[in-house]
């Protein structure tokens, strides 16, 4: 009976939340009775007969709050939807939100607090690689469970983390292949902010361009985080006249970069650019008019046309205001609670070891981005999409790749 019921729950979609609420509650209780707390929680997590505690750990303050707010909203939305459906194994999710304050040690401190004091069953959180790297030893030592939403540089695989964003090769290779073919591009100019993710991404991009595409990298440039003066860099680009600018500029610099590029006459009619760091969230700051015509390589765009996404966008806007936009990471963050729910239900237990073992192999069909599969290396198999930005701040998907398996330690690209 339980299997049937679980299936039933899986298929429930956000639009039917109201109607399902009562049903969820009723069967929810039956559920909890099926899974006595003593059995599903043998390691002393904060799981009672009616609730399960889950942590959310992002920056609500500081420079990263700009980016992480969307993830917090998506995770809360998913959790509310799951609760409205009766929770996980009949237990409502109780959120404990902590603020990482854009400060990496604080992430480690708060992760420790969530795991050791609150005994949360899992954590949705972290955004930057630096915060993940800081918190990771805590998760490994305390055997916690982290769902990490951001696309990132790879070179990592922890049994305590599920990576719901793309690792570098998933985001880079197919995009470069497409632009080389589509635009007949031979020369590339690589530019990124000066930290690990852009540097690793550019390393992979350079190898791919030089060894597989037969192209040439004519320049590689890293901008100090927060720098807003791009005059000299733009002049260097003008001198080199690359076919494609491949960009991974982040944060406040990103906005200045596009504004100044445009002002210097390098708009999309004169210059092809593929970026791996611009999502709908960034467009708010950059302004659609500065971005129109350029391409982004992401696994998700808000404009994607499928039922799951339409429901997701509608629910998100209903919950967080009609002006809310949804970027790639926000969508990946939304997957976290759903994957956790599925994993617990597959395992029939909240025990971290069992949940870890149960999730790989699971295919989440109702993901807004389209079906994704959790692989044994804790990353997701996804598709890559190229979106071309319009003035309204939305991207039109111009290319969708096939399924790409995650490969966090790519051979030949290190």
């Amino acid at each position: 009976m339980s299997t049937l019921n679980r299936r039933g729950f899986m298929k429930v979609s956000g639009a039917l939340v109201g109607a399902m609420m009562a049903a969820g509650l009723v069967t929810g209780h039956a559920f909890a009775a099926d899974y006595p707390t003593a059995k599903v929680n043998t390691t002393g997590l904060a799981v009672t007969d009616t609730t399960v505690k889950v942590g959310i750990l992002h920056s609500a303050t500081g420079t990263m709050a700009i980016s992480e707010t969307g993830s917090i909203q998506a995770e809360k939305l998913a959790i509310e939807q799951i609760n409205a459906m009766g929770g996980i194994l009949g237990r409502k999710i109780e959120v404990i939100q902590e603020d990482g304050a854009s400060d990496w040690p604080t992430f480690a401190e708060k992760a420790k607090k969530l795991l050791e004091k609150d005994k949360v069953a899992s954590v949705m959180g972290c955004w930057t690689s630096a915060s993940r790297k800081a918190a990771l030893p805590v998760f490994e030592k305390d055997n916690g469970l982290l769902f990490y939403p951001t696309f990132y540089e790879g070179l990592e695989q922890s049994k305590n983390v599920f990576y719901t964003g793309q690792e570098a090769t998933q985001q880079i290779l197919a995009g470069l292949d497409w632009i080389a073919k589509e635009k007949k591009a031979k020369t590339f100019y690589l530019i990124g902010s000066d930290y690990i993710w852009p540097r690793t991404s550019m390393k992979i991009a350079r190898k791919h361009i030089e060894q597989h595409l037969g192209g040439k990298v004519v320049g590689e440039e890293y901008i100090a985080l927060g720098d807003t003066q791009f005059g000299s860099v733009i002049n260097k680009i003008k001198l080199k006249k690359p076919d494609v600018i491949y960009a991974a500029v982040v944060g406040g610099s990103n906005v200045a970069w596009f504004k100044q590029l445009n002002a210097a006459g390098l708009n999309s009619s004169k210059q092809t650019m593929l970026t791996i760091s611009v999502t709908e969230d960034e467009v708010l700051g950059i302004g659609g008019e500065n971005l129109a015509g350029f391409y982004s390589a992401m696994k998700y765009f808000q404009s994607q046309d499928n039922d799951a996404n339409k429901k997701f966008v509608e629910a998100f806007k209903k919950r967080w205001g009609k002006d809310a936009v949804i970027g790639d990471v926000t969508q990946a963050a939304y997957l976290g609670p759903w994957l956790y729910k599925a994993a617990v239900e597959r395992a029939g237990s909240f025990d971290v070891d069992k949940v870890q073992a149960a999730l790989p192999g699971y295919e989440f069909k109702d993901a807004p981005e389209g079906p994704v599969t959790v692989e044994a290396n804790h990353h997701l198999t996804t598709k890559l999409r190229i979106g071309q930005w319009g003035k309204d701040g939305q991207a039109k998907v111009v290319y969708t790749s096939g399924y790409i398996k995650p490969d966090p330690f790519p051979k030949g690209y290190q």
Partner: protein
Amino acid sequence: MTLWEKMCASDLLGGKQGVIGLAVLAAVIFLVLPLGVDIFRLNLIGKYLTYAFVAVGLVLLWGHGGILSLGQGIFFGLGGYAMAMFLKLEASDPITTKIQSTPGIPDFMDWNQLTALPWFWEPFKSLPFTIFAVLTIPALFAYIIGYAMFKRRVGGVYFSIITQAVALILSILIVGQQGYTGGVNGMTDLRTMLGWDIRTDSAKYILYYANGLLLFGAIFLSKYVMSSKFGMLLLAMRDKEERVRFSGYDVSNFKIFIFCLAAMMSAVGGAMFTLQVGFMSPSFVGIVPSIEMVIFCAVGGRASLIGAVYGTLLVNYGKTVFSETYPELWLFLMGGLFIAVVMFFPNGIAGIWDKYATKYGWFKDKAVTAKKPEVSTTGVETHAVLTETLSAEAAAATESTDVAASVKKTTRKKAAISSPNIRGAEA
């Protein structure tokens, strides 16, 4: 004379009140906190106490020397990074890093296509060298900065702004040279020291106590410096620099010395931070942490060593509590704290405590009526007494510009200078 009386009479400890203050702090750090909170909170407190090293250094430098450095994060970071380099090398043995293209070097080097350990990393394979580096490199760096600036009489605001710029430069460099430094991620996942797992609960207790003892060492060292003639000179310099200079002292050497000492203390704090927290990142080197550390000191009372420790604990505890419950309010509170402390309580907690202690006659000390040095430049009485003693010894001191020597020469003319105004400085 019993031991108690001896201690109370000791100038080093600052009279009866000083002894009681130290005893209470010791009880809090070594007994109350370890018994009262669990290991998670205790580890946090241990982390805060590493900032207290910086705050204690700032009491010397700023509270007593009038030199406001906005770059103490530089030294905290250098100390922390030195320790982190040692631990990182130990964590990167060829077996655990066999997945890398070059096993045996730290992971971030491998990601940045380095194929061999850079030369300046080599000596950090040795713990004695690392400890030596923690103590000397930041001090040396401080010496260079201090020498360049104090010799040219750069002071006050300019010194603050330049130290701030140096902090910025260093943090950009660390972030930019990520193949050598780990970049913005810092050095993470540090596990063992000479095979001893620093992540276990027992290790955390041991490190906490070691940290506490070192902090007391720093406090005693500071008290020693402050109760020596050197301490008097510092106060005098803070209040009337020219007068001290005209008395024949080489003011810049004193400033350089105190800057180096404060840097060294910060570095020890940084090293202990790395050990207790398990990583080091550039976010401790930059401008923001450097200024935050000044506020720890200001809240505690910029002239009071013990106050600085309490200030550090209080602000950080507040930060943790508030950011857990009201993350939005935290910045308001922190900002408000800055403004309020500066405007209404320039002597911080220590100042408030003193006010009530004297008002209600707590810890009445026969020999000493406690009065702390004012923060503003109004210590007129202090000058009078000071310049008297100073001029008496000026002849002796002018010959030697060597700071260490002049400190050593501190003839214990306590009878002459133990005026109530100055005694308060030692609390």
